[in-house]
């Protein structure tokens, strides 16, 4: 498996800080901000960004995590994922400003699922999207409000985002794809960076 680093730890740190700044600047401190990360890796990134925003604002920013396995639109084709991650949206999101955080934005289907799931938790005033990497090739009309880096991904490769909690390092790489599909009928092997 070939791996080619696009963003190392230092650059990622800078990008995450910039995203936090953009999110903080976009509206007032009393906007009821909640930052919700999409499982997996989106949640870890969300924690980092929320921490940074909290420092900028001088007050805590509540976070949450969403696992969208049960809201996918392709369940009928690919079947159940045996491991469903934790969904924890403890804060009531009614009337609040929610920023969804995900690691890679690709087809847009994950975000569609996340929007559906979030709406089951309440009617927020506003939902925005923040992604670390946008690799284009959308299949749905979905765009991110805050983008870390735009990348073009050559055929046969995919984007791999690593976070210390799960992968032991903080970086973004391009990886030559082998059998990349986590949804096939094999015991759950983690695939870095969902492709959607």
């Amino acid at each position, binding site marked *: 498996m070939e791996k080619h680093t696009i963003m190392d730890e230092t650059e990622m740190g800078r990008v995450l800080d910039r995203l936090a700044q953009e999110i903080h600047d976009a509206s007032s401190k009393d906007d009821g901000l909640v930052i919700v990360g999409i499982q997996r890796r989106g949640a870890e990134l969300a924690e980092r960004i929320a921490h940074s925003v909290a420092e900028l604002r001088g007050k805590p920013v509540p976070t949450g995590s969403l696992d969208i396995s049960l809201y996918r639109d*392709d*369940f009928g*084709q*690919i*079947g*159940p994922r045996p491991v469903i*991650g934790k969904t924890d949206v403890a804060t009531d999101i009614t009337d609040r400003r929610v920023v969804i955080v995900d690691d890679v934005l690709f087809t847009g289907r994950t975000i569609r699922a996340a929007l559906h799931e979030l709406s089951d938790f309440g009617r927020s005033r506003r939902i925005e999207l923040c992604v670390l990497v946008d690799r284009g090739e959308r299949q749905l009309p979905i765009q991110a409000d805050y983008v870390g880096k735009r990348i073009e991904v050559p055929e046969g490769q995919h984007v791999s985002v690593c976070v210390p909690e799960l992968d032991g390092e903080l970086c973004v790489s391009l990886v030559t794809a082998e059998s990349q599909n986590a949804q096939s*009928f094999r015991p*759950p092997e983690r695939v870095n960076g969902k492709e959607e």
Partner: protein
Amino acid sequence: MTGTTGAAIGLGKDLVGLEDLTREQIHAILDTAEPFKEISERQIKKVPVLRGQTIVNLFFEPSTRTRISFEFAEKRLSADTVNISSTGSSVQKGETLVDTARNLEAMRIDMVVIRHGSSGAARFLADRIPSNVINAGDGQHEHPTQALLDMLTIRDRFGSLEGRKVCIVGDILHSRVARSNIWALLTCGADVAVCGPKSLIPHGIEDLGVSVLSRVEDAIEWSDVLYVLRLQLERMESGFVPSLREYNRVFGVKRSRLEHAADDMIVLHPGPMNRGVEIDSDVADGPRSVILPQVTNGVAVRMAVLYLLAGGRPEGAEAAKAGGA
């Protein structure tokens, strides 16, 4: 049979029993049940994952609790559910189980949850229709989702099942709940015993790896987990025990008997309870009882099972891979 394949953990098309499941499979089901517990705590207790799927609850034996538990599970997964109840044997009703199976197939039902009075009925149906079949209790054979929720409840309390001493007390002979629990517990490495009047302990149970305790006092002293089975009125009427009162005096789980129990021993019951027969109210409602958590876990476990069996056509997986999702 052709039809939808099972989950990535290799359950196959149906869940007919726990006899042949591996430890990994059982734990995978329990792990999958965890996120489903969370959904039942939400305000909107519904996820769209089984939207558009048709599930038939085919109950040939009366049952309120199990059927309602399945119905909640199905509806919380956004499936469309239909309840069909029927009492009496196929012969009495005039429509054989084979014909019922054919009708279901003709209606293109996605999943069937079946409860039936004959051992083997779930397998019988599963072999004849392409729908996923879930056994909600067949005769005296198995009641897999009950045992799974029991495993989850024990695991929640103790952290693991390995090495746990679990004693099942009561009418083992006629109990599908006992059989399913025995399979699951043995597979997961628990130490299993049964206790009850000899007339209600089945032939050859020790050959399965289960020990037999003759007195309930011994069972209580020995156990980490006491699983109390319901004693049905018919058992007295068929002469297995002289009277329900006698049964309560000799085998009843009473607070006074629990004095010698380990501090962390818990009491389970599959419900519905015959208060004052196999279990006294002060135990059923007492601090050791996890009977209500069993019920909560029941919906989550059933959601997990439905989720793991449903969906997933292999040709779709290939298409999904090719299209890059």
